């Protein structure tokens, strides 16, 4: 079995990755950590910050910095999880793609390679509401989807 773990930088996706370690060991499975970076998110963050701070002339510069930080942050997250998997002797690799989050996840999850998709119950908005991602992909992902909390 091959397991796809969705990593979005939230604590819940970190926990999903931990839960998948046990599963991977019991099923002798390979794990792929998967993240999607969406430029629209960097644009929105930069625009809102600059508009509220009255520094719209620096918008492009902020967008570039946020985009760079987003990539570094998700790379750091994935690397720390990879180290954990290596310590547990579970075969694991990582993948970061750019594009629409829903479309890229569905493309990967429904590629026919995976027997299970694992994600956190909540996203980066915290624990106040169920992950918007679950609403977006829950019905369209073909393999079983494990929602960890």
């Amino acid at each position, binding site marked *: 079995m091959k397991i796809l773990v969705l990593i979005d930088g939230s604590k819940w996706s970190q926990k999903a990755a931990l839960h998948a370690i046990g599963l991977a060991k019991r099923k002798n499975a390979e794990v792929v950590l998967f993240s999607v970076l969406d430029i629209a998110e960097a644009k929105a963050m930069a625009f809102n910050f600059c508009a509220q701070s009255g520094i719209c002339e620096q918008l492009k510069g902020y967008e570039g910095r946020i985009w760079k930080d987003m990539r570094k*942050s998700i790379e750091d997250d994935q690397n720390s999880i990879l180290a954990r998997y290596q310590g547990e002797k579970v075969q694991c690799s990582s993948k970061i793609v750019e594009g629409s989050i829903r479309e890229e996840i569905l493309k990967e999850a429904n590629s026919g390679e995976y027997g299970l998709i694992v994600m956190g119950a909540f996203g980066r908005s915290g624990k106040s509401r169920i992950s918007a991602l679950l609403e977006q992909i829950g*019905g369209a992902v073909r393999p079983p989807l494990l929602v960890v*909390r």
Partner: protein
Amino acid sequence: MGYSSSLIQRKFKDIVGRRYDSVLKDYSEFLLTDEEMFVPEVRSILVPLDSFVHDITDEAIDVLSAYDATVSLAYITDADVLELLGQALDRESMEEFRKKKEEYGQKLLERTAARLEDHGFSTQTRMFVGHKGDDVIQMAKNHDMIALCRRYADGEATDTSISPIVLRICQRVETPALIY
């Protein structure tokens, strides 16, 4: 230092400095404590069934087989539907509907239990009249995991949508949820 503390410190050390502890408290909703990092063992799995769930998929059984767990199958006949039928038609029609639903439920429970037992699971079954969302959330408190068909409690779910009851259950339960 635990993995999560190290993660939090790595992420926030440059920003908060000595205010690390207060950030940890104020923003706990976004951070992972050591207690929350614990992945509990799964010894019992709740699998709700209804007339929209015809079977457990082979893929879901394969995932569940990773846990050395007892599976509790629960078939719930919707109390609100029965009440509506009683009001709109008569008590006799309501009873007939309930009887037919329960006959179907019994067969579904037996068939599903037999299939799971063939895969080495020990099973328990339960059937009752209740509320599919609230009762499942309540029952989940006595289990370590829940496995839900994405169409559970919603015949209108399409190939690309998920039942709103399933989403509500996922929001409210404290256990991992497998959606198949």
